[in-house]
């Protein structure tokens, strides 16, 4: 609770700071607020509290809040010169992102379905604005409209599902729902089945799982890159946390019913994401499709629910977040310099920018799942999980997709190191270097010594 309050208050303070033209104070204030919020996260560890039957802040919630806050922090470090070049009113960016973050914290710690809905809405409304914040840019407007229409549509599904569940149990509380299911597993109310499917569809929209992914590439491409980073990392992670909290908790007794549906979604998501990513010319669109395929891997832990599921998602999401932050940050720098985000504009990058190229290489290796990087540990846990359940078909598809992944992630590495290019030195602000260094260290640390975050939840 104190985490949400801190973040919301920071958002307001930043807004006022903007009003009084204290531009220099914006970033420090935001970072301070986020650090305090993170401090609260650490302090509340191992000390689960339930607030008014609405929020249940357990280690699961804290872990995902922590990673969300940290990634937002990294993203804020990248804001230097970024927003200023787009707009005069940069305080709004900060405020909107912070409000979205407060919604995200609710999404990962809800106990009551109404809280889930409110959290998703708080997050989404801010993101609709953020996606379209470049008022005069056509792509940005398109992204915003698409995101809004699709988002509103999916929220409809979600709400409809929630009402059906309410109809069956008379409660929004996920524990009550679970007890209801456990006690009457032989005579489950028929309302449950459409309810679960509708909620699943709604959440799949939010995490961008196929076949509900069509908004992702366009929105990711059209939105300002930094906002895309936020959507691809923090928002996605939160979506999975919300998904897991509901399906591994409340709906777990009906596992046999919804697993086949989800299994098909996983397979489609993996294949669509990877195969389409293979054909992308734009790095940003490639990352968008790769994020779809990562959603597929993340959904693995929902197919075979075990005590380790939450932790597997946490590890995978951390790895993916760190790598994505690097990838998008490099994209921002390259685009500022060359004005384009096609993969060719990365040609020859390594010559003049060895450190950036190295960071992006580590990020790509991690996304591809090469050992000694965090991505490998994430993928390994997923494979282990699926192997445990003996889902051979899934496994074969996962392997084939991992192979495809190698191919397109390496395209970037090939462009940077092996192709002749423009030989431009990118202007890298200090903060960017800091983010690169932190993320690379994070990726390698998790890759080499994952003990620190295994079994954390």
């Amino acid at each position, binding site marked *: 609770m104190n985490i949400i309050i801190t973040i919301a208050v920071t958002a307001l303070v930043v807004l006022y700071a903007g009003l009084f033209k204290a531009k220099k104070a914006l970033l420090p204030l935001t970072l301070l607020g986020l650090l305090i919020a993170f401090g609260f996260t650490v302090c509340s560890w191992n000390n689960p509290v339930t607030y008014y039957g609405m929020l249940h802040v357990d280690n699961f919630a804290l872990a995902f809040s922590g990673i969300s806050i940290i990634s937002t922090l990294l993203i804020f470090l990248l804001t230097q010169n970024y927003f200023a070049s787009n707009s005069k009113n940069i305080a709004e960016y900060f405020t909107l992102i912070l409000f979205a973050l407060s919604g995200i914290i609710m999404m990962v710690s809800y106990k009551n379905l109404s809280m889930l809905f409110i959290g998703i809405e708080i997050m989404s409304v801010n993101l609709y604005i953020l996606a379209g914040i470049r008022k005069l840019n056509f792509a940005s407007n398109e992204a915003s409209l698409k995101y809004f229409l699709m988002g509103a549509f999916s929220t409809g599904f979600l709400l409809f599902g929630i009402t059906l569940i309410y109809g069956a149990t008379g409660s929004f509380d996920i524990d009550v729902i679970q007890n209801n299911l456990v006690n009457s597993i032989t005579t489950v109310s028929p309302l449950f089945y459409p309810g679960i499917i509708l909620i699943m569809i709604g959440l799949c929209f939010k995490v961008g799982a196929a076949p509900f992914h069509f908004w992702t590439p366009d929105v990711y491409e059209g939105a300002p890159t930094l906002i895309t980073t936020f959507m691809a990392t923090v928002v996605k992670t939160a979506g999975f946390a919300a998904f897991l909290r509901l399906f591994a908790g409340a709906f777990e007794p009906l596992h046999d019913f919804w697993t086949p549906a989800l299994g098909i979604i996983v397979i489609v998501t993996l294949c669509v994401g990877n195969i389409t990513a293979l054909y992308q010319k734009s790095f940003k669109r490639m990352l968008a499709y790769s994020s779809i395929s990562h959603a597929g891997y993340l959904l693995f832990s929902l197919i075979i629910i075990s005590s380790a599921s939450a932790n597997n998602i946490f590890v995978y999401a951390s790895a993916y977040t760190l790598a994505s932050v690097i990838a998008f940050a490099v994209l921002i720098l390259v685009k500022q310099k060359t004005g384009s985000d096609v993969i060719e504009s990365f040609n020859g990058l390594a010559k003049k920018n060895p450190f950036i190229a190295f960071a992006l290489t580590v990020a790509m*290796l991690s996304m591809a799942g*090469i*050992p*000694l990087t965090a991505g490998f540990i994430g993928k*390994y846990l997923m*494979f*282990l999980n699926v*192997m*445990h359940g003996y889902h051979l078909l899934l*496994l074969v598809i996962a*392997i084939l997709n*991992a*192979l495809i992944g*190698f*191919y397109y992630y*390496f395209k970037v590495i*090939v462009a940077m*190191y*092996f*192709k002749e290019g423009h030989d431009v030195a990118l202007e890298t602000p200090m903060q960017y270097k800091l983010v690169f260094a932190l993320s690379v260290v994070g990726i390698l640390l998790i890759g080499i*010594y*994952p*003990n620190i975050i*295994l*079994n954390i939840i």
Partner: protein
Amino acid sequence: MELLLLIFLPLVGAILTSFIKGNGAKTIALIFSIISLVITGVIVCQFTPDASRQFVTDVSWIAQLGIHFNVGIDGISLITVILTNILTPLIILASYKRNYENSNAFYGLILFMQSGLIVVFTAFDAFLFYIGWEAALIPIYFICAMWGGKDRIKVNMKFFVYTIAGSLFMLLGIIYLYLQNPMHNFDINAFYALNLDTTQQSWIFWAFFLAFAIKMPVFPFHTWQPDTYTTAPAAGTMLLAGIMLKMGVYGAVRWLIPVVPQGTDTWLSLVMVLAVIGVVYASIIAFKQKDAKRLIAYSSVAHVGLIAAGVFAFTAQSLQGVMIQMLSHGINVIGLFFVLDIIYSRLKTNKIEELGGLAKVAPQLAIVFLIIMLGAVALPGTNGFIGEFLLLLSVYNYNAWLGAVAGLTIIFGAVYMFRTYQNMMLGETNALTAGFTDIKGSEKIVLYIICALVIIIGVYPKPLLHLSEASVQHLIEQVNQKLTGVN
């Protein structure tokens, strides 16, 4: 302690090297690789040639997943460790005259790879083995794709996707074994002790075999190899042919046959036939090659086919042959590739018909080339002979017909090697080769050392054979016990 140094010293060297600008990188790399060689010497001296594992370090690494950092050396590991640490300084020294762009990255990657290789050859934990396996692949991919020749990007992508496909299947196999293991760890002894039925073993066999067969490469998984060898820079080719393909051989000896003996038994005849087909097929293709580098690449497929046949014959004799032949083949093949690289760096061609008469202008090169080539065609008294003899004998014991077919490799090898030698070295000089200068400096050192090794191992292989004998014997007993125990 010594073993840990062998693993981590190159890593330190790699990091150090990558920060050095200019020409100092190669000196640092050379110093680090020589230190590794010296430590290897110390290990060989301290090693007691019995079946036990020595220099063992076993610490819990990722406790939650049952992963240990478990390394040690037995006779079989020792041979491959010797191979790696003798060849790495030679390879670094061989590229001493070349000025590679970004040489710090180049030498850093070589050292990084050395560390990965040592992990592969000494790991007794399957997960660690896998990590080393991949850690050795990434640097060689970069070396070949960054400093390679024409078409390097496409060719190396093929190589990379091929090998990584194999290793992903191996990873699945490892995870499966881990889940079957009641102790929930990756320890090699636990894997040896598993009781799997024949169907399970067959599946595991293929999962592992794919990875190893692609790496070696065994026919028909060899298609990545000639292109990759041809386009790679000289040092890359030497690393690939000299050391890297032994990862596949070693993997089969250590992780495939003892873990799934019944599975291997089921598919044994197929694998043997594939290996022998590879021997003959590659030899025939080698005949037709116009480019000397490609010819050596195919001859390497042939040699490795024979080694693979020896691995799967799995007798004390054949395994000893495999051990000595791994070492010999590594030494010979980097010698051959180095000679070709010397010629290429001066004349910018490796086309056999464009050369000729080199012996007149470069008599020293002609002599060392001849010695190495004799080793490669397994003339008695050279290092190639003893291994090839043991291998052919054991293939013959497995099946006389296969042995007869595999024996053709000796004839074929002699024919295409000597024809190449004749066309390149003998005859009259032409306009291109007239200005050729003889070897000097670091070239001389490398080639003399290689020639010395060819002859010493050829004349007196006993100490080497002695190192691995007990371990090989022990491994075979273990497998036989397992085979008879279940049946």
